[in-house]
């Protein structure tokens, strides 16, 4: 029974990863936090953007909403409720945005989502400055790195599970059809807009939660810290490197890229940007469909 074998494998992997903080230094845990954070972001991003081919740069808008929700409510509400609230706010914003924008196609959607992230940032800033009269907020939650890591790991597991379930469900089929040709899919009786909307909200909610879970690590929050556009771009490139059409793709892209960034910033602190840029260009030229597709291509080529 191969499926049970894979399930067992996944269970072993998750428990090994969950036990890792007991054996690693704080920096090791820090690496795992960064890695699981980006793997979750990239996987959640690909849930929506992979099959629909809608390239979203709104990642940091939701990430920041999550972080801000925690900053605002961490003193007054119990933590689990804060997370629920963050998910609800992120999901609601996504639903409103999705309803109005999912008919935009191609580059217009890309630009819109980037603009959205900036609009959210400007609005939050203005609100904080003029209505609440503060800008920086403090989060004093008693979390160690490993607590944050375990939450991220749980979220990642759930995200992968959702992705796997979608892959085997009717909605997954519908998505494939939409990705191939939206008009044909619509003619085949698929409610295109609803399918896309559900996926968008789901993906955005998970991203919001990543921001919410990571926020206590920074102690101090302000818009320029949590709405850092780099988050959107890194998520995008990680998912694309691995291949956003496959469940495991984003993970395969995010883990090595994350480690590479870490290595670069430690060994070439003054030349990081140049290497990062060259890497981007290389990825687009050498593996436009992601590492997994490339691997499969090589395997097929070898088999023939």
């Amino acid at each position: 029974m191969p499926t049970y074998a894979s399930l067992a494998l996944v269970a072993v992997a998750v428990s090994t990863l969950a036990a890792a903080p007991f054996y690693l230094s704080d920096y090791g845990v820090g690496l795992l936090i960064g890695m699981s954070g980006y793997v979750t972001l990239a996987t959640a991003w690909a849930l929506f953007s992979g099959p629909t081919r809608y390239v979203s740069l709104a990642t940091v808008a939701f990430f920041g909403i999550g972080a801000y929700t925690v900053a605002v409510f961490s003193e007054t509400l119990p933590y689990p409720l804060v997370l629920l609230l963050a998910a609800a706010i992120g999901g609601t914003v996504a639903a409103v945005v999705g309803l109005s924008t999912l008919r935009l196609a191609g580059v217009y959607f890309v630009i819109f989502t980037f603009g959205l992230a900036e609009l959210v940032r400007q609005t939050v800033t203005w609100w904080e400055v003029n209505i609440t009269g503060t800008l920086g907020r403090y989060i004093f939650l008693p979390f160690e790195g490993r607590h944050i890591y375990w939450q991220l790991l749980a979220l990642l597991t759930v995200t992968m599970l959702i992705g796997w379930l979608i892959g085997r469900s009717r909605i997954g089929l519908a998505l494939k059809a939409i990705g191939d040709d939206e008009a044909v899919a619509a003619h085949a009786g698929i409610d295109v807009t609803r399918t896309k909307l559900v996926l968008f909200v789901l993906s955005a909610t998970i991203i919001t939660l990543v921001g919410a879970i990571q926020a206590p690590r920074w102690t101090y929050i302000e818009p320029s810290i949590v709405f850092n556009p780099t988050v959107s771009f890194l998520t995008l490139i990680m998912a694309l490197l691995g291949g956003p059409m496959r469940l495991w793709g984003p993970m395969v892209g995010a883990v090595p890229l994350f480690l590479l960034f870490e290595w670069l910033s430690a060994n070439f602190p003054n030349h990081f940007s140049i290497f990062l840029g060259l890497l981007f260009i290389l990825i687009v030229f050498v593996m436009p469909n992601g590492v997994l597709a490339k691997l499969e291509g090589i395997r097929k080529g070898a088999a023939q």
Partner: protein
Amino acid sequence: MKTKRTAVTRALWRFTSAIGVAAIAAFGVTESHAADDKTSITIGYAVSKSGPNAGGADMTVTPNYELWVNEVNEAGGIKLPDGSQLPIEVVEYDDRSSAEEVVRAVERLATQDEVDFILPPWGTGFNLAVAPLMAKFGYPHLAGAAVTDKAPEFVERWDTSFWFMGGGGDYTSALADILVQARDAGTINNKVAMISVADGFGIDLVNAARPDLEAAGMEIAYDKAFPPQTSDFATILNEAEATGADSFIAFSYPPHTFALTKQAQVANYSPPVFYLGVGAGFPVYSDISSGKMEGVMSLGGIDPNNELNAAYRAKHQEVIGRAPDYWGSVLIYASLQMLQQAIERVGLDRAAVTEELSTGTFETVLGTTKLEDNQLRDIWWTGQWQDGTFVAVAPGDRAGAGSVVLPKPGWQ
């Protein structure tokens, strides 16, 4: 189909675990031990070398770290109490202006590189982000480039933290005192036009300024925040001028400080009090204002007759190739000298160094320096450009203070 899926999964698993093993090998993320025979003192820091914070870090923080390391190593290193002398070895990272990166870099410095001491990043937000970690790992945290009114509270929360730049309220109450004196002397009217950048620094200061000005009986005629990306100030200055206020105050960052100066010159707007934020104390400000900066006020300042400071400025110019700014640089350099002297007195034991920093008295470029409740309080709160030097004018009762010259002359 099913078998293929499993094959892919398996290949993936191998791939991921291989990477995991490689990562552990490459980064050595398990506990490691430093060699017992020390040949150097390792000092680590993570600062923003790229991203939006790079401009600030490159002016105030990084050059002083480099200058200090250069000075110490040229002198043969730091002399420890046991008589040995060890040079400094630097471990540096780029935090890419990201809070998550700076947190992880400090974890790395503390638990991976196991450096002897860690120097702080640039900015209030990033100093707060690393403060819990520095306290947890027991490193003295010399928060240099961080302005916060909550320093006393933070010292209680993180007992290894030291704060060197004061709080927003210190700067604004000093400014309010100057305004009150000028008003009572009949030099300026009662109205103030005030703008601030919608970012941590600007909001902190403007929130502190409002109650100070109101308590001083000044009328705030214009009070607006602008987004950090703002590049055009024509309209804002028009509106400020239209209020008839004699005092213009901007809690701004360097790009805005420069743009405000240029626009004020273009519009020939030269109110009796012209007070700007970060950047007015940069050496380049003299070029920006085409040499017409006489009378412009800002945070910081120096005592032009202080020889120690003059020597520091000359050395900075010589080693880094440009002059330091007139506000934060000297404070940060002084904090490094304190660290050095504390190490020379008590050795590399971090708890002892922390204790020494907290209670000891030091000879720095600021003169004889002693912290109060882990905070540096001997700071110049207000400065004014006078004859090509950014002279400290407040607190006025401190030795070496210049006197404020108001009204500011015109831009010509």
